[in-house]
């Protein structure tokens, strides 16, 4: 079973039902170290549900999730984050009335090893630790080009920088696996291009495994090594970007059934 230890993430037969709604059905996914995998699918296919299951925000109805061989599907979200899976959100979730620096520092919190009594007394342990936290956080902000914004309130940043800050926050604790939920949502083509460069850059720089949800084909096809396509909670196709683009099932999921039917529809409209 050496193989198990080698995989960063191993999801087996994962399902989640909301009452009668089958949001995710028998989902299987294995991520190797340093892979960059895309998760795509039409609206409501269950992509974000998969993220919420991996990060422990939902408990799975059945199935298992293993991080480096260790079962994590029964852990709480903060425990999973501490084990090394962090994420960003589809609709940005920053600590919006706090400073940019604080946003990042909070994500480093669980690595801090001083307690409440040290904080109250502002002991020596406190000050040495605070210096380290500050240093680490500023380093990450530097990488994301946000270090000159450190004292600004997060909600006052322009949209693109907020997205960058959210990724910075997810990375400061040096996770093994990063989940990006539609990082390109609401961006214009120029910003998308920058975003793609950024993702490729952090992928190499932090030696990360990345799982990415994205609607915009350009992003997925451009940077992902492997793509998984989800529809109605089930995997309908998997492979490299080229294979995916030519898979009739995928085309069907995105564009509708057959050409004939489309033609019928158009006729109806006329």
């Amino acid at each position: 079973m050496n193989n198990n230890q080698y995989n960063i993430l191993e999801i087996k037969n994962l399902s989640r039902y909301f009452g009668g709604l089958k949001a995710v059905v028998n989902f299987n996914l294995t991520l190797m170290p340093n892979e960059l995998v895309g998760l795509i699918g039409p609206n409501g296919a269950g992509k974000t549900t998969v993220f919420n299951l991996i990060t422990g925000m939902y408990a799975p109805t059945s199935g298992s999730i293993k991080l480096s061989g260790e079962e994590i599907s029964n852990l709480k979200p903060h425990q999973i984050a501490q084990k090394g899976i962090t994420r960003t959100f589809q609709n940005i979730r920053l600590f919006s009335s706090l400073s940019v620096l604080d946003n990042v520092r909070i994500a480093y919190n669980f690595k801090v090893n001083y307690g409440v009594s040290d904080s109250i007394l502002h002991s020596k342990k406190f000050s040495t630790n605070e210096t380290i936290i500050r240093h680490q956080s500023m380093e990450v902000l530097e990488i994301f080009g946000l270090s000159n914004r450190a004292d600004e309130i997060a909600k006052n940043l322009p949209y693109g920088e907020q997205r960058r800050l959210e990724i910075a926050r997810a990375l400061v604790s040096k996770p093994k696996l990063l989940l990006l939920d539609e990082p390109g949502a609401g961006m214009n083509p120029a910003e998308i291009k920058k975003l793609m460069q950024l993702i490729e850059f952090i992928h190499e720089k932090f030696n990360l495994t990345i799982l990415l949800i994205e609607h915009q084909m350009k992003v997925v096809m451009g940077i992902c090594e492997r793509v998984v396509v989800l529809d109605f909670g089930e995997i309908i196709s998997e492979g490299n970007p080229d294979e995916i683009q030519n898979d009739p099932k995928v085309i069907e999921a995105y564009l509708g059934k057959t050409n004939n039917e489309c033609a019928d529809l158009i006729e109806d409209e006329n």
Partner: protein
Amino acid sequence: MKNRNLQTIIIAILSYIIIQLLMLFGIINPYLQQIICYAGIMIISALGLNLIYGFTGQFSLGHAAFFGIGAYTSAFIIKLANLNITFYLIIGIIAAALLTGVIAFIVGLPILRLRSDYLGIATLGFGIIIKVLFDNADAVFPIMGGSRGMLGIPPLTNFIWVFLVVLISVIVLRNLINSAPGRALISVREDEIASEAVGINTAKYKTLGFVIGSIYAGIAGALYAHLYAFLHPDNFYFLKSIDVLLIVVLGGMASISGTIVASVLWVFLLEGLRIVLPEAILDWRLVIYPLLLILIMIFRPEGIFGKREFKFLKYREQKQK
């Protein structure tokens, strides 16, 4: 940073000397002195609620109950052991802090899962239960007096005690919120889901904030019990929680300075109106201060201080080169 601490200490000592001198020269009479002490007690209690509501974002209406638990605990122990020396107040304060802390922990664990309004209702229920317990406490402990009130509590609280405890409360709170655990508390207020996603154990920090804030109330209660030497369950009814809540909102949520200023204003306004207003319209003061509140909320909804702090209360970090 050293410089800042020094500044805080100097300001503290200066204000202490000024008030002591005023007392010596008889400008501050015993009545006024009592009001000053009461203002200090309100500061401590309101700082506690500000930690729970302003910083951690947990809406609690049970603050007066914790205040009452602290008051009765200290009064009970000091009266029972007949500790009639001012210094022994420390025993009452520690006992009050311990018991309120433990009760807040036990109560907090289950109810802090609730959010906003629901949490408010649960803490309200807790407050009413505690008040009923006080009302009937004489059935078990005759010394507590039940609904007739508890009499003959040694009056140990003086200005030095109140001043010291206020000073320590302010410094502890300031240091706490400017640390990693403090940032975790604030992150819970900002966004619970995002906090969990970056590894913050939100349940733990909610409980931490709730326990420390309730301990503040308990300590304030202990000082209160030995200030007026008389306790009545009505003084710990949930409406008193709303008074504290108003102080926190009025001063500015998550502002220590705001809470201090609003507490003092609140107490002096209530008492001041009692002196200023002619006898015939004395009861109108209960109309005047809600009106003031409404006006402040219309023109300054973020409170007097918003989130700002006095300079000497600000924590300056060393910037890295």
